[in-house]
């Protein structure tokens, strides 16, 4: 039953991925800019001037002067065979560029979600259980603050505090150079927002469940409070929280674009941004495809988790 559901969802993902590819290709194609300028080393303001005849020659050699549907068709024909092509800017295979970047981004995403759950869920529970007490107010203020802080600002403040004033973390650097310590500040910068959202969702969901009759019954039976909260209430309150976590997981890519650029981490967000600036459509397509797969995959996992967490739900 579950496998039929998974297969059906995966089949439904195919038209979604195709649609995403068409939209991204069209938008990139219509946007101004030229990858040939990047190939010629002229993507920055420090460049010399460029010969238009050379631009046209290289454009022709790379078949970039072909109509959009021809270029898209050529890309699609290879992509369905698992070949995402090679970047226009270098002979690097796109799949390899993505693989290298994905390692960094996934470390960030899992680190972020882990941290967000570790802080967000207990904060939400405390806030709900101690409703309208000083700990609830404090937790709510923290959650509101966390949601409101822009990621880029947080990243710079974290650098100022923990890399300059108290120099315990590096300002920038790859995992290759510095080890996992390189992702501590980026993870902290990204985790605040999802942690705050998770805390708010946990609180409201827990409040709803804590008002239910069966909770009152459990308490009147004399069950210890931790058991009531963590076993009876949380189990039933967790489904909306899992939904939020699933959405946040996919949405983290957006925050990664900002944070990876600030901390110079060679992840998927940085690769995507660089490719957009260079108008390297082959890499953009590949990265967006992978991001879509991660998003679809995260949602599928969330749906499957519902059945584990709440046996009443049938797929």
């Amino acid at each position, binding site marked *: 039953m579950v496998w039929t559901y998974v297969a059906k969802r995966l089949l439904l993902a195919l038209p979604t991925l195709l649609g995403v590819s068409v939209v991204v290709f069209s938008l990139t194609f219509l946007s*101004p800019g030229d990858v040939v300028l990047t190939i010629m080393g002229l993507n920055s303001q420090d460049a010399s001037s460029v010969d238009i005849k050379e631009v046209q020659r290289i454009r022709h050699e790379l078949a970039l002067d072909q109509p959009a549907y021809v270029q898209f068709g050529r890309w699609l024909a290879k992509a369905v065979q698992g070949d995402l092509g090679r970047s226009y800017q270098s002979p690097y295979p796109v799949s390899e560029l993505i693989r290298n970047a994905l390692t960094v981004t996934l470390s960030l995403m899992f680190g972020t979600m882990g941290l967000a759950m570790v802080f967000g869920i207990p904060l939400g529970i405390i806030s709900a259980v101690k409703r309208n007490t000083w700990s609830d107010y404090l937790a709510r203020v923290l959650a509101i603050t966390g949601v409101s802080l822009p990621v880029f600002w947080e990243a710079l403040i974290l650098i100022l505090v923990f890399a300059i004033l108290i120099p315990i973390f590096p300002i920038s650097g790859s995992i290759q150079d510095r080890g996992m310590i390189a992702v501590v500040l980026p993870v902290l910068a990204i985790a605040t927002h999802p942690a705050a959202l998770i805390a708010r969702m946990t609180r409201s969901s827990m409040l709803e469940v804590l008002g239910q009759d069966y909770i009152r019954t459990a308490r009147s039976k004399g069950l210890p409070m931790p058991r009531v909260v963590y076993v009876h209430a949380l189990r039933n309150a967790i489904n909306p929280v899992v939904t939020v976590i699933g959405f946040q997981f996919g949405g983290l890519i957006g925050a990664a674009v900002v944070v990876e650029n600030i901390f110079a981490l060679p992840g998927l967000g940085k690769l995507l941004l660089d490719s957009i600036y260079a108008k390297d459509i082959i890499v953009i397509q590949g990265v967006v495809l992978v991001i879509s797969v991660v998003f679809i995959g995260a949602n599928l996992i969330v749906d499957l988790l519902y059945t584990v967490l709440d046996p009443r739900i049938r797929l």
Partner: protein
Amino acid sequence: MGLHRLIPWPLRNARRAHHIGPLGLFCLALAAGALIFAPGAPLYAQVCPKYGGTLRSVDMNMPHMDPTGTFNPPSYLTSIYDSLIKVNQDLTYEPGLAASMPEKVGDASYVFTLRENVKFHDGTDFNADAVKFALERIVKGDFPTSLTGLWRQWLKDVKVLGPYKVRIDLKRPWPDFTWYVASTLFIPSPTAVKKWGKEFGIRSAAGTGPFVMKSFSPKDRIELDRNPNYFIKGVPCLDKIIGKQISSGTVRLTSLIKGDLTHVMTFPESQLPLIEGKPHIIIGEGEASTLTILVLNTRVAPFNDARVRRALQYAVDGKELIDKVYRGRGKEIEGLYPPWHPAFRKSQHLALIRPDPAKARELLKEAGYGPAHPLHFALVAGDAPAHVERTVLLQAQLKAVGVQMEARNIPYGQMQSDMIEGKSAASLFQFLGGPILSAYSWDLFSGESGKNYTGYNKPGGAQNPAVGNALNQAVGMLDQNKAADLVASVQDKIFEDAPVIYLNWRNHREAWRDTLKNHTVSKLKNRQDWSRVWMEQ
């Protein structure tokens, strides 16, 4: 210094006496110990006072390290590969892989005698075949690069005259030959290129340069190790170079202050307050490297009218831009070339490019514009802070004479694309011209140039045959002094025609920690030579 001087005096004496003795033995042991235990101690002629250390710099934005590509900055590439001629930071030339400067045969042939016993990083020999291979590879054009078109335009043939002698025949005399050999003809190992095929430059790179590529991640990170077999004995001084791509200006400079970086390539004036006066930080500046102009499309209204163009030139104040946006770090325009350029000739009619709002209003009135019918146009510019600041200031200056300028700040690459395709009427353009004569004159204003974005002297654009003819004649002249004089004879006509609006020259700068020794700022932006710098540990 003779090598014998490297031997301690007791040993030299002992050698003369044909026996070593106890003091000699002690010195021998001391010398051997020093050689074994002193890390980084040179076994060859000592060029640098200190050896070892790692230099950490930025701007590693290269997608590959194949020398047929074009690079900005070129410093990482020139650390791996050498050319036949080396261009120094002060723009002087010296033999590189060639044993001497080339011998000119006729007007369009050059014979290079090459250095012997030079090895590529993969252990193969450098010779005349490698030079031929490198040039033919560029011309063949398997790798998409702008160098293909350039060399195809000039190169007739390359002939191997002997294992270490090669002749380059050109289709016609090329005044900029030395510059282009030095700045574009880098020699890779033919064996490595054939072995790696399309993946040469990303999986592996083998040149003859002072550093060997150890690892490379496109547009992210490069690690270069000292080449122990470099053909210039005693260099490089550094053990390692690590290049990173850090986009955020604040993060780059903060990393420098903290010591995570040793060197930061160019950064805008607005970021100077972040590092000025900080301990252990040195800031170096190169003068007037970048030209800032407004490129006007003379094929379309309103810029097909010379009076409108001239009015804009009188309306703008490049000096105010220098003072307010560049914080005084720039030069006013006094000729077509920067003041340090050998072709610089000061204009005799500087008033043509100096602000004069009254004249601007008068010309606009003549062209039919006034308060009731103001001139309105759109300017496309980059979206970096300095571009936005300049755009805002220009907007204010033009408003003062009744011109309404609508500004569109977009990524620089997109702006360039629109400009070269002739899609925008006016663009704020900043570029590096280099030391060659054509860059600031023929390229911008000849009807035959592919880098002329104004349409000036091209079909449909503003015409001045006297300028076009003079520039076309000058670009082929081998006597660069005469060529410069010829260009100077028409520079005021260009100012008068105003196909571009001259704003100013902008300085460039670098910052580094004081532990980096023997480093100076290159005359051109981002042409660092890492082979002779060292780290004070």
